[in-house]
């Protein structure tokens, strides 16, 4: 891991307009991503955890520039790519790839696996037909699929195999950073471990950097060097995986950890369950976004939003409590 970050995100915001009323006027915004800063180093995995709707995918889509962020900046290898367009963006499209939760959504069902895997080379105008076919076979081998898969269609594969196809496509052009958006959430337990092993092997082989999005903290901890916990569009805590698990400081992180069911029947403990639902990012609570559910809420939390502050080496928390 070198010291120069491969990715640096500064105060990124993505506010979606919400159309209301018969005139479809925009009075409100869905603050899906609301001021996020993070860095990822070469060969490093940053895990991103948070509940449904907290903005994880949106953040990933901003980084890959599928969305144009409302404000803030994205630096890739030191270069500001926030506002690049068209041809200027092309080299970065190659370097930053994405793996999706449901590979069926991202794989064109009417194309053979061979065509799907060849496409990125064609788009980037790399090699001739023969060399591209060779590359495709090499990719299939890398992700552990048989060569004869080229003439078959995505629906002929199992969920785990389809995810391998998705992974093969995302690594086709030797990317430097891969955004993995819940790549194993839809898979059976017995398949999930195959994909996690594959991602870890590929990282070692190609020195890849990952932003690994998931809501299963055990999975995230397994693959990540550092973990960032998100709540309603904001990062509320970030630290090394082990620290997040052993010494969680933010009350939300603590409740997340306590909510994980542990596969050990000898450890039946009464959990510390937090009440209430995740609020909407359209009308986020004032002050700290977690305050309506926080077991340790103080008066100050209701109107003063806490800032992310450093509490120990590489351990950031956004909370008014004296931690």
């Amino acid at each position: 891991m070198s010291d120069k970050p491969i990715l640096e995100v500064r105060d990124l915001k993505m506010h979606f307009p919400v159309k209301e009323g018969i005139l479809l006027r925009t009075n409100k915004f869905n603050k899906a991503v609301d001021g996020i800063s993070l860095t990822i180093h070469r060969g490093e995995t940053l895990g991103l955890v948070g509940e449904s709707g907290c903005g994880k995918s949106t953040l990933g889509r901003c980084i890959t520039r599928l969305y144009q962020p409302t404000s803030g900046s994205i630096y890739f290898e030191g270069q500001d790519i926030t506002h690049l367009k068209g041809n200027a963006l092309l080299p970065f499209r190659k370097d930053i790839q994405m793996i999706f939760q449901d590979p069926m959504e991202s794989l064109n069902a009417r194309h053979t696996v061979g065509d799907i895997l060849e496409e990125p080379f064609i788009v980037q105008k790399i090699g001739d037909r023969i060399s591209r076919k060779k590359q495709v076979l090499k990719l299939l081998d890398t992700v552990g699929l048989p060569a004869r898969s080229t003439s078959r269609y995505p629906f002929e594969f199992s969920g785990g195999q389809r995810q391998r196809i998705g992974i093969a496509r995302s690594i086709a052009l030797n990317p430097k950073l891969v955004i993995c958006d819940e790549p194993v959430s839809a898979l059976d337990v017995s398949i999930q471990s195959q994909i996690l092993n594959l991602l870890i092997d590929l990282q070692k082989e190609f020195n890849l950097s990952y932003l690994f999005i998931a809501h299963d903290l055990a999975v995230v901890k397994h693959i990540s060097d550092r973990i960032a916990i998100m709540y309603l569009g904001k990062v509320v805590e970030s630290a090394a995986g082990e620290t997040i698990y052993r010494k969680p400081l933010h009350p939300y992180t603590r409740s997340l950890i306590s909510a994980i069911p542990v596969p050990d029947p000898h450890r039946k403990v009464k959990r510390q369950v937090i009440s209430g639902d995740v609020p909407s990012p359209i009308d986020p609570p004032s002050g700290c976004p977690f305050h309506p559910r926080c077991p340790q809420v103080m008066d100050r939390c209701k109107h003063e939003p806490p800032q992310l502050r450093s509490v120990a080496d590489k351990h950031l928390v956004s909370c008014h409590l004296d931690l």
Partner: protein
Amino acid sequence: MPLLEVSNLITEFDTDEGRVRAVDQISFSANTGETLGIVGESGCGKSVTALSIMRLLPQPMGKIAGGSVLFQGVDLTTLPLSKMEKVRGNEIGMVFQEPMTALNPVHTIGKQIAEVLLLHNDYSTQRALKESVDILDRVGIPSPDIRMGEYPHQLSGGMRQRVVIAIALACKPKLLIADEPTTALDVTIQAQILELIKDLQAEMGMSVILITHDLGVIAETCEQVVVMYAGKIVEKGSVFDVFDNPSHPYTRGLLASIPTLETPPKSKLSVIDGMVPGLMDLPPGCRFENRCPYARHACGQSVPPIQVIEAQHEVSCFRWRDI
């Protein structure tokens, strides 16, 4: 006497390609006041088992082709439909895998709960409505009197699932069958729902059959566990038997493949290679044979009989003693 005793249950579907056996001679029982967990790969027959018990198999394709389901000593498989309707909701409540399909989008929450109460009790409308508010309150829906007048789409996923549970519990059933009640939910909401089921169970002395693929959830909530694979039960026993002394290679594979918060980051996870055989081409022998690291010639020849390891711990494997 157990509350529910399933013996040699066989469930088949007529499909375009022919008849398939989704559940093949399974036997298990659920004790009063206890929770029985059913785990297994996607498609192994968990939901079909639940639907068979409830006699809610899709018609005309699905039918129970053998075996019995004794509930308080009465065989539900041969019960006249009019009597079965009384059992459903009144004595056995069910939470379906997709909460949205269980709720009627055009009726208010209140109406849907009150209807169940009116159907099974000799209540006045007034009393049914009052009791509905109480039930919503019990499952942790804030301001239940207001929510009574709302429609399903106005509730969050977690609240909807609580409403579904409220409906299943409305008539204080003796048995609750919950099919993946928390899979679609966030971790903190999942924790709330599991605690809720546990509390209500303790309060009402109800038995629960919990279907899930999350081994953590099983370890935390169940007394007994049934492990299914390709339509058959491969292992069953107390939660301690199954987690401390997993005896079927599939159970072992499952337990070994999940990352826990204790596994070292980026370490190799153990995997189960290969795929589940399709129902149309089931092998003559053990159904796990093609993926089993311990398979021998005999395993492919005939179906392994159920063998008793001790008291209530049973496994269906030729080689359990050697592994």
